């Protein structure tokens, strides 16, 4: 990992199109501004990690077909009742 030290209002360029700017430093919190082309997604890392973890956990789900049928019936019933 490349480590660079920046002061507030200083920036880092990643390639030609991505800019990360230190907006403000308050205690142990750093506010960063990010400018990137629209097709590049920018998210907090924890979000990515959380989704990956959830996907992996989901593949371990195991339930019988009949259970799903029962739940589907109940969800359907729930929908029909709403229409009243």
């Amino acid at each position, binding site marked *: 990992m490349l480590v660079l030290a920046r002061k507030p209002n200083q920036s880092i360029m990643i390639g030609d199109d991505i800019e990360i700017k230190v907006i403000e430093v308050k205690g142990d919190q750093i506010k960063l501004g990010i400018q990137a082309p629209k097709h590049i997604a920018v998210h907090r890392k924890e979000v990515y990690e959380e*989704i*990956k973890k959830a*996907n992996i956990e*989901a593949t*371990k789900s195991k339930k019988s077909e009949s259970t799903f049928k*029962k*739940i*589907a019936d109940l969800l*359907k019933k729930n929908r029909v009742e709403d229409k009243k």
Partner: protein
Amino acid sequence: MEKYIDTPDGKIAVDENERIFFPEGIYAFENLRNFYILKMDNDNVFHLLQSEERPEIAFIIINPYLFKKDYVLNVREEDLKYIKILSEEDAEKNLAVFTIVTINENSMTANLLGPIIINLKEKIGKQALALNEEYSTKHDILSEIENNKEIREALGVSTG
């Protein structure tokens, strides 16, 4: 064209034309590109997003509008463009939204933070990140439903 794919429940017949291509796979499974959507029940409540490349990988998915009346799909426009949904008309006609379900001993939850969006016409899909900060990866499906005691019993889930 019919063919057979391997699934955790054995070989299933599928129509090759129904294959959905995920150019980026889904998070944690980025190298899995080809999926089929299989039925799980006759009311089309649950489906299985079945990987073709790895037969043991299959995700239970559900349309979030079915259990959350106020569900809003709030993802980057770029994500919709990526699967070739370019207009509201496109979205109305061809966009399918699913959330991945996790079941364990005590709960059934849906991942609202990472919805699966699919263009049913172009057969392209992707997992997008929701911009709604209050959505979680473990949204309790059961609590959204009134008679959840019945459902918990059906699931064989403890009420504790």
